[in-house]
């Protein structure tokens, strides 16, 4: 598990109230019960903590935390 993943999962559990045991890179937002409003909060967290802008309107219930990690990793590589 990467440090970025550790940090993201910890934030999702603490700030969005998702059960840590459910957190895997392949878990969909639908499976995690992250609805449209919580995805807005997720995008705020990701922007604040990782400096990555996520357009929450482009996220679907079938997207995963792995998709978010890919965006964070992509920014890290560019940097």
């Amino acid at each position: 598990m990467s440090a970025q993943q550790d940090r993201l999962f910890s934030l999702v559990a603490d700030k969005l109230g998702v059960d840590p045991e459910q957190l895997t890179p392949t878990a969909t937002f639908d499976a995690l019960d992250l609805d449209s409003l919580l995805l807005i909060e997720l995008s705020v967290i990701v922007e604040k903590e990782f400096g990555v802008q996520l357009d929450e309107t482009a996220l679907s219930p079938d997207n995963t935390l792995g998709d978010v990690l890919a965006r964070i990793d992509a920014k890290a590589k560019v940097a």
Partner: protein
Amino acid sequence: MLLQSPLGLVAAAWYPKQRQTVEEALAAGDIDARTARELGYTSLPVSEDTAPPDMAVEAASRVLELSGAQPADLSMLLHASVHHQGHDAWSAPHYVARRLGAHRAVPVGLLQQCNGGAVGIELAVSRLQGDPAAGPVLVTTADRFLMPSWHRWLSDYGMAAGDAATAVLVHRLAEEAGGPDLLLHALATRSAPELEVMHRGDDELNATPMGHSPMIDVRRTKRAFIRTYGVDFFLKTAADRIRAVVEECLAGAGLAADDRRLRYAVIPRLGSKAMAEAYLPPLTEVTGAEVLDLGRATGHVGAGDLNASLADLARTDLLEPGQYALVLNGGGGFTFTAVAVARP
């Protein structure tokens, strides 16, 4: 607010025959399966041919017929709405009054967002209690949500909008020949103007109607709100006000939280998930009355959710004589109202 004595209510709603089922909405790509599940609606009424003020006249005419009240005796006509009524720089309430023949009523429009119909009842009570000479007050609501200005499934989070009109006659007892459908025993309202930004977001105030987007997009302003304040700020503020109005309303009606006479606690017509998160926790914290959801086949009917539920309570046998219902509502701004009514 304090009611000096119970007032009578006669209530009816008008719905168009045309409906869009949730299956049709899914097939048309209006919503995805998850959103449909979270909203929990079965269908929405669609009024393509009848404009809101004409819808209000339909509901009002039914109430006048049921009550036996004479239009010329009405002292005030309060018309609440959320969206476009059919013309600009024009008074829909005056149109409704003219069509009903309520020539002595003072027509007033309530742009109170989704709690407008409920506040209309509060103002009606004020009118009747403040002026002993005032005749009955008619409260109407009417809205339709058509493209291109409003997408009934997508313009907002947590609800889908149905087209409907409601009418509630508020009168002193023994004033109407037919007798009331319901007795209004208590009404409580609390506001939360700190939540005004939910429906404005970061937008500047501009000079042209519909200038922020060609389609009403409450999702956009709510995203801006959540980015700044978070969902919890809304949930905590709403819970505080909801608890307050429910407690005040039950006390005003002389009902204990677990009073056996309190048959139902009726909730607004928002999506099921939104109500489970925002409305049910504070409501069920205060009272154990059976929760009644009357909106799955109507959707959220703009300014008229509470009034439509009064119409359902009035026109069905949900309440037996002597039984009470508490009807709860909320609307952008925000304002929360609870009323306590009983079947005579």
